[in-house]
């Protein structure tokens, strides 16, 4: 059955080869420039805050900051309220060239999220970046190659990109500093990094200092001199004798926030000078005391407003109204901003409290209204939810401890798929981990089930899913909730190897998708992509290759993007496996490489998609008799997935492992490895056939042809073309000539299968003919098989063909057909029909430069020296050259590049 409902509009309708769509226009800048997290407030974090009317420009600091253009690294380092951000914002505004600005926030976890924002900030500032760089789609990590591509790209620009990372102390992911250092180092003069931070970042600052490659502005320099303080006070309308100003500077240590609060408090008092004298003599903590003083002088309503908005990071008039229950706050906020009383303007009529003052105001809120904070969080959550700001709504719902609201909002938004894919997965899992077991209801149970399944805890996941479905049965609930349940059903079906369950889930989804608002489906392309991937996986498990391909191709054909990167990669891996099982080695290889390329582009390292891709490449390598390569790929796949529960991946892994062991001449170990031992509701034909083939080979190798034949007779899938040829070969090996010929005769009428199958069938016939004494027919069949196999470099069947057939290969004219690729000797024949496969991705300029030097027989070190880059960078380029050309060795890379006219 084909999918009858059209997937969301961004999916293409094409049913053809999905690889073709993964290179061209779908990776255009439009996708890359999209807000990586779909966050409506992001723009307020990508622009420097506005300078208030009372901002004092200090030329000595601006002049020092101008040196930032000459040094790779600049650090503006000072305590809270030292005036760091406004200094850099003012400098950036006067620079006359765009500056990429990003304000870090406490809620962003993980290196993947950080780099997604940094890339976004660079693009928003008009830094030309080619779409090839990619974007991290895995919240917690970023692929090193992505950073190398970014640094490479920046290093090639004429004008350096200026990147300001404000509040960098909030960036707590431990790898970030190291990664920044890497990019900074390799971007060379192409990047000027300015860190604004309260604490020293973990970059090797001593090295930058020693090399005079760093501009540094610290607390002492940021402190106001008495003259500057006098100017600042004057901006606030205060004129003091020099002596009084000096004393004030001494008392506040020239601290900007302290001076500002002083001015605000004094301005409101009857005798400012006397007031300040009193303050100077006091011993209270500066900000604490002054803020209380300034707050005290506001009207009761303004005080209430300031305390209440302190629970949110940013606010607009409407949100402030929701928090206070009052209306008409727009002019009040604008007034507070004008008076420079705590409130800062972050653009688009959004405001924030100065971070230092916000923190102290929260302490006041708790003291003055104990217990009000959760209620304010609840109100903020509800308002944000209503305006479509889901991530913020969830954070406030969780802070309020209102889990029914939080889980409900998450499920109602149809965002359940984000627990499985996209940049938010880790943050969401962490957020919902705080939900206690006492919370009951359909939405909380759906969320619990999703978390369990995402963590591969099948038993608990199914349990929670059952609980959620019981809730659903009791009351007619929201379609979004039911659709979320259906998604989890399809995943459960995939993990338990149950295609009928998956079909039922997808049929229900088809009914439900007309009941949920269309904009929600558009907003969450990952939902449909995941659903179809799970359906395809379950169908593939059950051996319904065509139906599986129909579902998987839709996913693989959808435009590349962060939200759908994981299901796309997963689907490409599955499609590669289908091609492999059908005997199309070259196609399988291309799709597996496309899956891995998706992995690299988005820095994904989550099984099973990446794993399946590697496993298929390993299987292809076994068939091409490149056993070392197969072993390496198999180990790589094993490393990345300690616990693969997915039956298709588990069976694929055991298939490759067993074939490799057989090829290495260890049939007993192969038989042990052949059984995937995954519990599944229905049997999988290809997994069973493969287990039978390996078991039979093991029996045969140990001298039990009867048992070997018996194992094969028990396989009920002989008529399936994908398996028939290999089964026939095994039958022939076990001595059942008639059964073997019967199988291959049946095969003749089918055409869906590839060279892997037809070569094997030809060998069966050739061997049967040879045994019947008809050498001429055997030669003719072998010649055809050789021609067909050469295109795919398919060597395994000939190597396993036995001494008699192999003897024929050593005689003319077959000898010349086999020479160069199957048997040693002879010049490598360039088969006329061999067309170089298309380049999946274009080489970058830098990669081409490396390739040209490679062709000149330069070593990695020499290339590094020649291009003024590090050896590791050259290695990174080499790896992507290999990947793009689909080769593993230098010589091959040069040869293929010449073939395609790339050099």
């Amino acid at each position: 059955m084909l999918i009858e409902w059209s997937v969301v509009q961004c999916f293409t309708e094409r049913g053809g080869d999905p690889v073709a769509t993964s290179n061209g226009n779908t990776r255009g800048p439009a996708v890359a420039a999209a807000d990586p997290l779909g966050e409506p407030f992001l723009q307020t974090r990508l622009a420097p805050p506005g300078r208030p009317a009372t901002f004092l420009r200090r030329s000595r600091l601006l002049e020092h900051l101008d040196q930032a253009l000459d040094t790779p690294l600049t650090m503006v380092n000072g305590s809270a309220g030292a005036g760091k951000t406004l200094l850099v914002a003012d400098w950036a505004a006067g620079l006359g060239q765009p500056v990429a600005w990003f304000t870090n926030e406490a809620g962003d976890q993980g290196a993947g999220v950080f780099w997604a924002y940094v890339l976004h900030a660079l693009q928003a500032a008009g830094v030309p970046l080619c779409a090839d760089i990619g974007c991290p789609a895995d919240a917690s990590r970023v692929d090193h190659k992505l950073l190398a591509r970014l640094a490479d790209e920046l290093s090639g620009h004429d004008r350096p990109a200026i990147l300001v990372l404000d509040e960098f102390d909030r960036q707590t992911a431990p790898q970030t500093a190291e990664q920044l250092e890497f990019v900074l180092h390799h971007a060379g003069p192409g990047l000027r990094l300015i860190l604004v931070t309260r604490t020293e970042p973990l970059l090797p600052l001593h090295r930058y200092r020693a090399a005079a490659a760093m501009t540094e502005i610290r607390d002492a320099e940021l402190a106001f001199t008495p003259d500057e303080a006098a100017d600042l006070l004057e901006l606030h309308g205060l004129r003091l004798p020099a002596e009084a100003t000096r004393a004030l500077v001494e008392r506040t240590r020239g601290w900007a926030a302290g001076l500002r609060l002083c001015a605000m408090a004094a301005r409101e008092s009857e005798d400012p000078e006397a007031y300040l004298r009193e303050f100077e003599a006091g011993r209270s903590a500066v900000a604490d005391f002054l803020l209380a003083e300034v707050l005290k002088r506001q009207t009761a309503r303004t005080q209430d407003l300031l305390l209440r908005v302190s629970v949110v990071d940013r606010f607009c008039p409407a949100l402030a109204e929701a928090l206070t229950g009052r209306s008409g706050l727009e002019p009040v906020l604008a007034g507070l901003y004008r008076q420079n009383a705590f409130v800062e303007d972050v653009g688009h009529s959004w405001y924030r409290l100065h971070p230092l003052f916000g923190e102290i105001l929260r302490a006041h809120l708790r003291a003055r209204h104990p217990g009000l904070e959760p209620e304010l969080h609840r109100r903020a959550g509800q308002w944000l939810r209503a305006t479509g700001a889901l991530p913020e709504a969830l954070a406030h719902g969780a802070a309020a401890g209102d889990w029914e609201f939080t889980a409900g909002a998450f499920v109602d938004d149809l965002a359940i798929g984000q627990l499985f894919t996209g940049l938010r997965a880790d943050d969401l899992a962490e957020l919902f981990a705080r939900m206690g077991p006492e919370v009951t209801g359909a939405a909380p149970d759906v969320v619990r089930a999703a978390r369990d399944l995402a963590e591969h805890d099948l038993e608990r996941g199914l349990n929670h899913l059952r609980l959620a479905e019981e809730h659903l049965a009791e009351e007619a609930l929201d379609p979004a909730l039911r659709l979320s349940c259906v998604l989890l059903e399809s995943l459960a079906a995939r993990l338990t190897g149950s295609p009928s369950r998956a079909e039922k889930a997808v049929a229900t989804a088809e009914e439900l998708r007309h009941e949920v608002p269309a904009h929600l489906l558009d907003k969450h392309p990952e939902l449909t992509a995941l659903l179809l991937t799970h359906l395809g996986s379950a169908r593939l498990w059950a051996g319904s290759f065509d139906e599986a391909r129909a579902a998987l191709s839709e996913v693989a054909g959808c435009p590349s993007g962060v939200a759908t990167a994981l299901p796309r990669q997963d689907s490409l891996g599955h499609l590669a496996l289908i091609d492999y099982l059908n005997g199309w080695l070259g196609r399988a290889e291309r799709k597996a490489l496309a899956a891995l390329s998706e992995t690299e582009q988005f820095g994904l390292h989550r099984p099973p998609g990446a794993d399946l891709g590697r496993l298929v490449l390993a299987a292809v390598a076994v068939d091409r008799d490149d056993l070392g390569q197969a072993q390496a790929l198999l180990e790589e796949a094993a490393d990345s997935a300690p616990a693969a529960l997915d039956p298709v991946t588990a069976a694929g892994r055991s298939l490759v492992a067993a074939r490799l062991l057989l090829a290495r001449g260890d049939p007993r170990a192969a038989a042990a490895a052949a059984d995937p031992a995954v519990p599944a509701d229905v049997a999988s034909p290809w997994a069973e056939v493969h287990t039978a083939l390996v078991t039979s080979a093991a029996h045969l190798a140990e001298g039990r042809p009867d048992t070997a034949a018996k194992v094969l007779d028990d396989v009920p899938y002989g008529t399936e073309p994908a398996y028939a040829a290999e089964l026939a070969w095994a039958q022939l090996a076990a001595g059942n000539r008639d059964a073997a010929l019967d199988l291959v005769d049946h095969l003749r009428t089918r055409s869906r299968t590839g060279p892997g199958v037809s070569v094997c069938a030809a060998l069966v016939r050739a061997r049967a003919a040879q045994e019947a004494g008809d050498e001429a027919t055997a030669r003719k069949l072998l010649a055809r098989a050789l021609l067909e196999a050469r295109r795919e470099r398919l060597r395994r069947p000939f190597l396993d063909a036995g001494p008699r057939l192999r003897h024929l290969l050593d005689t003319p004219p077959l000898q010349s057909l086999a020479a160069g690729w199957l048997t040693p000797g002879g010049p490598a024949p360039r088969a006329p029909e061999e067309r170089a496969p298309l380049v999946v991705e274009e080489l970058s300029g830098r990669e081409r430069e490396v390739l040209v030097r490679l062709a000149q027989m330069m070593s990695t070190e020499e290339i590094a020296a020649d291009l003024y880059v590090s050896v590791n960078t050259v290695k990174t380029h080499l790896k992507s050259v290999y990947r793009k050309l689909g080769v593993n060795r230098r010589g091959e890379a040069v040869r293929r590049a010449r073939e395609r006219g790339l050099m």
Partner: protein
Amino acid sequence: MRYEIRIDGLMSETLTKAFPELDHVRMSGQTVLFGRVIDEAHLYGLLTRFQSLGLRVVEMRQLPE
């Protein structure tokens, strides 16, 4: 681990409530916060909170059990 942390200036009642896990005493122009600190993570968390409230730490030491 028990710690004693000296803060420059006299903290208000309101602000000391931001550190409910610690006791406090005000003396000679300083506020001394003291009490049990669970582990290193807690310690560094406290330092960050002092910083974000604009408080200056002048001394910090571990007390004998």
